[in-house]
């Protein structure tokens, strides 16, 4: 890890009580969902991470809880640094939710809509929480691990209930 980056990770650790991991020279910082807006604002204003390069989510169903992690890939154009911020989404029934960062980075507006569309994670306070890639009347969130790829099991009367149990995404 770069010296400058190490310092930033340390500052984050003191300020926001984060946990850091390193892999192939990349820093991953785990931030609490409640603190994500403060942490990203701090990184943007004080540490020069002015670009939200990428934002996505990962679904760890069924092996881990909480099942969703939101990933913010930050880039500092001024200092030429990269930092990955990981936010485990507090599991709250079937309605996972994290605060929106679209006020910090305008790019997050569409990326959060994409994460909502693909994973069903809601962003509290988002100005325009509609589906972005799938049709507005679509059922389910395709990138969840319990969403079938390309096909659905046909339900007949004799196995309707059994298959329904395996389809949590289809339930409201």
């Amino acid at each position: 890890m770069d010296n400058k980056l190490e310092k930033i990770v340390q500052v984050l650790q003191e300020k926001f009580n984060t946990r850091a991991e390193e892999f192939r020279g990349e820093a991953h910082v785990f931030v609490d969902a409640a603190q994500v807006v403060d942490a990203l604002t701090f990184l943007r204003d004080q540490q020069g991470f002015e670009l939200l390069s990428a934002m996505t989510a990962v679904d760890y169903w069924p092996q881990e809880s909480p099942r969703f992690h939101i990933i913010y890939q930050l880039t500092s154009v001024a200092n030429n640094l990269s930092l990955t911020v990981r936010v485990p989404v507090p599991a709250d029934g079937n309605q996972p939710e994290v605060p929106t960062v679209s006020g910090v980075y305008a790019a997050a507006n569409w990326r959060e809509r994409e994460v909502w569309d693909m994973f069903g994670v809601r962003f509290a306070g988002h100005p325009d929480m509609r589906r972005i890639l799938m049709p507005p009347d679509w059922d389910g969130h395709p990138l969840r691990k319990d969403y079938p790829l390309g096909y659905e099991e046909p339900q007949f009367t004799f196995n309707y209930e059994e298959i329904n149990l395996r389809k949590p995404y289809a339930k409201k």
Partner: protein
Amino acid sequence: MTQLEEVTLDELKHLVSDRAITGETMMLNMGPQHPATHGVLRLLLELDGEIVVNVIPDIGFLHTGIEKNMEAKTYQKAEVMTDRLDYLSTVTNNLAYCLAVEKLVDLDVPVRAQALRVILTELQRIASHLVWIGTHALDLAAMSMFMYTFREREVILDILELVSGQRMMTTYIRPGGVWRDVPVEFEAAVRDFLKMFPKRLDEYEGLLTRNPFIMDRLYGVGKLTKEKALSFGVTGPILRACGVDWDLRKKRPYMGYEQYDFDVPVRTEGDNYARYLVRMQEMRESLKIVEQALNKLPLGPVRSDNRKFVPPPRSEIGVSMEALIHHFKLWTEGFDAPKASIYSAVEGPRGELGVYLEGDGGPKPYRIHMRTPSFENVGVIAEIAKGHLVADLIAIIGSIDFVLGDIDR
């Protein structure tokens, strides 16, 4: 209430002005089958006369679930999906994906393969910019440009066909190197292109750069400030036209870009014309890189000899039992990647093409996210088109240079 295609205006009222609700301004649907939207982008326009008040982009018409599909394939087989993202810069997509896989499993690439990758991605950048300038000029009523640029792009596609057998969906770059060495005709073909193209580029510039009709449509239109561009995550030529010197080839060199001597064109105006000038100059810089890479193209293997990740050459399979086993294992099971995640990015023709890749210890990516530059770049249209005429919106869309396959994935 005005009935739109699938949603009512009521549901969109946080995105339009109050005057749209009272009917003072007009809502106009543009696309998805509009020729000026370069694909299937739908824009909902709120118009006050001919002035654009609000733009609501509607994307997803080309969503094919590439990320979900890739999760179900081994690392080698998932690569063909990357060709289908941005179908105008397929080689660059392959490179971004392969670099991510190589970073995840820690695999080295021989120098000859690195140089070949550089040559092909730079040719691809030129081809992509040629489509941009052709369609952009077509939108601005300079019809013949389209014919000229597609004539030159054809030469590049022929080179791609020469090395890979495919004109567009090449999958020539593979994890650990490239598919096979280039044929002997390759060097001559590229040199012919290097000789022919600068003259053609001069012709284009002669036709367009100081053309008063083009200047009228581009100069001072669609201004984007540096701060806004960064906040919206805009990268590539659009960001460089706003005065930010940010090119991953220079800032975070990959594939040996640090050994080539080239400039990164930067303009400060941030308007359509600046974007035009940046891209035109970029084509000349790409030519420089191709020429240098070709001049010192090293000899040697084009694939890593780490047999745990890279299949053995065909010639070995007949004589070596080990090679046969490796071939069989790699094409049936694939190779395992560690349980970890990485992010790696390359400078594509449209901006930062990033790959977030997470392995779970098995042969298939647990999660792969393609950070495609067009997605962010289109998100900024609404911001820069406000207050312009509808005709200027066409020029702005052209100067953004997006590919819908890249946005919708």
